[in-house]
Each structure stands twice: as structure tokens, then as C-alpha cells.
């Protein structure tokens, strides 16, 4: 439908629109404000880590980074565990119990997080979960369970039932079957779901914004957001923050790209 020149032209222009801003941010994170404004596209004069030192030490982005690591490292496996247990049961049960449980768990995909934030805040207040990393883990797990059950339950259901039946004739209990048959066979969808959860939990902003008050409990996205007010146009500092906040996800993307696309696209078919 497009001539080869038009095709190449469009692709090249869009590639530039993606690459240039990212490069400017990467270079800019090593520049002074003046250097950035005078030559946004030029290579930085030195690879001075001053901006990084400032955001990590001075602005305490280091501790926000650790908070993000802790929250993500707990909420991703926990969500996967609960969702795969439920998905496994759904794939083995029959009739009403199966689709009833699946439907109930997946229903949450239709509820946007912003819709129940007021009652959730009140509930968290009563349970003493406000301003704590535990609270963030709970919120992450709850909000992403529906999509995780959707991905994992949907996949497990496609596994041949005979495998499970054979093992139950052997007298193997459901827990062993889950651990040694269902989970290993679902590895591709577990990986896809894990990546999807990693990205959304790592980047989560709403819950920290709602629940966290103490600066020492901030996660990265929240700490970055607070920069926005403090540093207005000190872009080099903002950029150093952006690079730090994105680094883990970018590194993972480079090595696990296949799963990223599968996971994030599986997430996209919700809605």
C-alpha cells in the first residue's frame, strides 16, 4: 500500500522521534543546566556523575530505589503465587465452581484503581497499612491479581487434562501436581505475567501517592514526582532521576524482550 520510499520515510522519522528524546535525556543527565540548554544534542563534556550523586545522596533517591526494589520484589512473586494457585484450581475444577471463581477474580479488571481509592484509603487507615511498604505490597497484589489470574488461569486451562488426571490416579495430591506439573508447564505464561507485573509494580504511582506520607517510605515514581515541584526546570537532575528509575526495567527489556512483548500485550487484551 505504500511505496518503499514513503515506508522508509515514515519509519525513519518515527525512529528519530523515539531515539532523539531518549538520547537527549541520557546525555543530559551528565550535563549542567546551562550545558543542556546550549546544546541539547551534543555529547556531554564530561561523564561527571554530579547529577546522579545529587539525586541519590542529596535527594535520597537511593532509599526510594531500595523501597521500590523491596515492594516490587515481594509483590510480583506474591501475586504470581496467589494467581497461579487460583488459576490452577480453575483449570482443574469443573462447571460452576470453575467459571464462578474465575469470573469473580477477573471481574476486578473492570474496576479502575482510581474508582475505589477513597474506601481503600479508609480501609487501609483502619488496618494501619497507611504510610507503610506493606500497604503498598497489599495494594499492588490486590490490584493486579485480576489480570494475573486472567493470564495464568487462561493458559493453565489449555494444558491437557490427561496430565493432571494421570497424576491424580497415581495418588499424587493437588499440591504436588501444582508444583511439579502445572507450574513447570506454565513457565512461558508465568514469565510473561511476571514481566507484566514487574513493569506495573515498578512504575506504580497512584498507591504510593495515596498512602505514603514519610519521605523515607517513598518509592521511585513518587520521589520523581516530588522532583517536579522542587526542580522546575533543573532538567539534568530530573533526567538523572528518570535514568535511575528506568534502569532496571530497561536492562530487563534488553535481555527478556520476548517476554515483555508477550506479557504486556497479554495485559493489553484486558478491557
Amino acid at each position, binding site marked *: 500500500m505504500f511505496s518503499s520510499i514513503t515506508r522508509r520515510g515514515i519509519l525513519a522519522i518515527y525512529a528519530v522521534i523515539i531515539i532523539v528524546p531518549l538520547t537527549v535525556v541520557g546525555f543530559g543527565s551528565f550535563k549542567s543546566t546551562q550545558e543542556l540548554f546550549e546544546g541539547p544534542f551534543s555529547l556531554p563534556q564530561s561523564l561527571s556523575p554530579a547529577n546522579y550523586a545529587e539525586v541519590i545522596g542529596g535527594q535520597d533517591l537511593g532509599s526510594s530505589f531500595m523501597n521500590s526494589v523491596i515492594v516490587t520484589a515481594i509483590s510480583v512473586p506474591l501475586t504470581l503465587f496467589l494467581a497461579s494457585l487460583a488459576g490452577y484450581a480453575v483449570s482443574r475444577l469443573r462447571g460452576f465452581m470453575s467459571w464462578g471463581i474465575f469470573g469473580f477474580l477477573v471481574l476486578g479488571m473492570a474496576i479502575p484503581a482510581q474508582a475505589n481509592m477513597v474506601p481503600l484509603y479508609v480501609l487501609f487507615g483502619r488496618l494501619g497499612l497507611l504510610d507503610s511498604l506493606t500497604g503498598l505490597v497489599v495494594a499492588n497484589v490486590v490490584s493486579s491479581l485480576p489480570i494475573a489470574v486472567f493470564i495464568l488461569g487462561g493458559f493453565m486451562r489449555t494444558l491437557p487434562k490427561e496430565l493432571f488426571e494421570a497424576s491424580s490416579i497415581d495418588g499424587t495430591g493437588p499440591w504436588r501436581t501444582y508444583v511439579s506439573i502445572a507450574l513447570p508447564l506454565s513457565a*512461558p505464561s508465568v514469565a510473561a505475567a511476571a514481566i507484566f507485573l514487574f513493569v506495573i509494580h515498578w512504575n506504580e504511582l497512584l498507591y504510593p501517592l495515596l498512602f505514603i506520607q514519610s519521605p523515607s517510605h517513598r518509592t521511585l515514581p513518587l520521589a520523581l514526582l516530588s522532583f517536579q515541584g522542587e526542580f522546575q526546570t533543573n532538567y539534568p537532575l530530573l533526567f538523572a532521576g528518570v535514568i535511575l528509575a528506568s534502569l532496571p526495567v530497561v536492562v530487563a527489556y534488553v535481555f527478556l524482550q520476548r517476554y515483555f512483548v508477550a506479557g504486556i500485550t497479554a495485559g*493489553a487484551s484486558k478491557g
Partner: protein
Amino acid sequence: MSIHPGTAAKTSALDSRPGAPDPKARRRSPTRVNPALYLFPLPAVAITAFFLVMPTLQAFQYAVTDWNGFSAAFNYVGMDNFIRAFTKDSLFTNALTNNLKFVLLVVVAQTVFSLLLALLLTKNSRGSILLRALFFFPTILSSVSVAFIWKFIYDPNFGLANSVLGAVGLESLQGSYLGNNVQALYWVAMTQVWFHAGQMMVVFIAGLQAIPRELYEAAEMDGAGKWQQFKSITWPFVAPATSIVVAYTTVQSFKAFDLILGIAGNPPKASLDILSTRIYSTFANSEFGYAAAQSIIFMAMIALVTWLQRRLLRLTPKGE
């Protein structure tokens, strides 16, 4: 390193219900379900009921009160909060209008643009695979990061957009972007498309690659032009992907909360206020009852727009 939309299609083809009665299985002597199996979904069901279903139902309860979130006393105000939102609160109606405009802009632009990218990159050549990986990349960044990148692009004094325009002698096109209250929402919509078009492109590529090649060969033999082929083969065949993209983009742009806060600050100025940021501001203002009512309107809007789209998409011919 490669992008395999096929894998995506496989993991996402989950539309039929699990455990629907399989007549063959029933006729066979049914394997007894181990009762322990009922314990497996229990934790997930319990926390979903407690932290998701219950709060959502409570939102309806709060919505008819003037509770401020702290004092023990509050009054039932019936439908007052809803009436206030639509008739007395220009901040809310402004956010609602902005949000609908934003959703419409992003849905149209992102669907068209990601389909265009997918059409250009359908073939699995080395170059296509590389470009897909590049175009997908922004999706993995956090909204706040994307917001900061584009804040710099749009900065009226030092920003990239104005420097580039200045460098090529197009000073007349320089603007203040987000500073311009009429245009601000459009510029944020463009950022949102940059952010997620690559993700939707992958959904389209999966759809496009499933179209049998023979159809195009046959059409070519019949002398159909490229546009004709697009209209009568590609478009109808890619319709399921289109409805996924439209539905997802709708929900995504209704919830562009993080991007707006990152790019416009908290609270955002009126020209960039959308429903989710409005609800948050109302909540931060300790008007819990009113914020809950706004949340319900928000949910209803998403449901309404999604329903309308399904109707509209069903009206478009799916091809013969």
C-alpha cells in the same frame, strides 16, 4: 532478540470461559475432584473480596454522604453529590469534558497510527524486528519518566521542540505548548500516543500476520489495487485486533493519571485536569463522600464509552 507477536497472541487468546462443561469429559466417569483443590483459590478470593469488592461497594455507600473522612459525624445527602458534580461544580464538568476529549483524541490517533506502524512492519525482516523493539520501548517506561522527557521537549524557553524549529528556520511555528491552555491537552495526547503506540502496534501485527497470504494473491490476480485490498481484506480481518486496541486505549487514556500529574504537576491546571486527577484532588481536599460520588461517575463513564464503542464497531461492516 526478537519480537514474537505470535507468543502474545497465544497467551492472550483466553476469551472463552475455563471449565465450561465438556460433554465428553462428563460422559467419561468423572475424575473425583480432590476437595483440597477448593483451598487453592481461597487466598485470592478472600483478598479480592476484602480489598477490592468491598471497597468498591462502599464507594456507593460513601457517595450519598457528606463525610469528610475523619469526623464520626456525617449526613446522608441522597443524590446531592451527583447533582453537584453535574450542575454546580465547574471543576468537575471541566475535567469530564477534558477527559472525553482526551480519550477521543488518543483513541483515534493511537489506533490509526499503531495500525500504520503495524502495516509497515508486518513482515518479519531483520529491520522490522529491530524497529518493532524500538517502537515498543517507551511502553516500559514509567509515566512520570515519560512526562519529564516531554516536559523538556515542550519547554517554551529551552525545550527541544522549539530549538529544533529554531534551528531549521521555522521560528514562526514555535509555541508555548503546555503553556497554551487551548492546545495543552492536544500536546499531552500526543505524548500519550508516543508512550503507547508501540504496544498497540504489536497487537495489530499479531492480527495482520494471521491473515492468509493467498487472499492478497487472489485479489491481486483480480486486479484489485492496494487500497482496495486494504479495504476488503486487511481491515475486516484485523477487526478483532482493532476492537482490542480501541477498548484498551480507551481505558488507558481514561486513566492517564500518572502522565498528567507528571507533566502538569499536582494538582494539574484546569486545562489539563481529567477525571482521575479531579477525584484525587477532591479526595485530597477531604471531601470523601463527594470524591466517592465522582469515582462512581468515572466508572460509569468508562462503562458507557466502552459500550458505545462496541455498538459502533459492530455497526461497521465486517466484510463478506
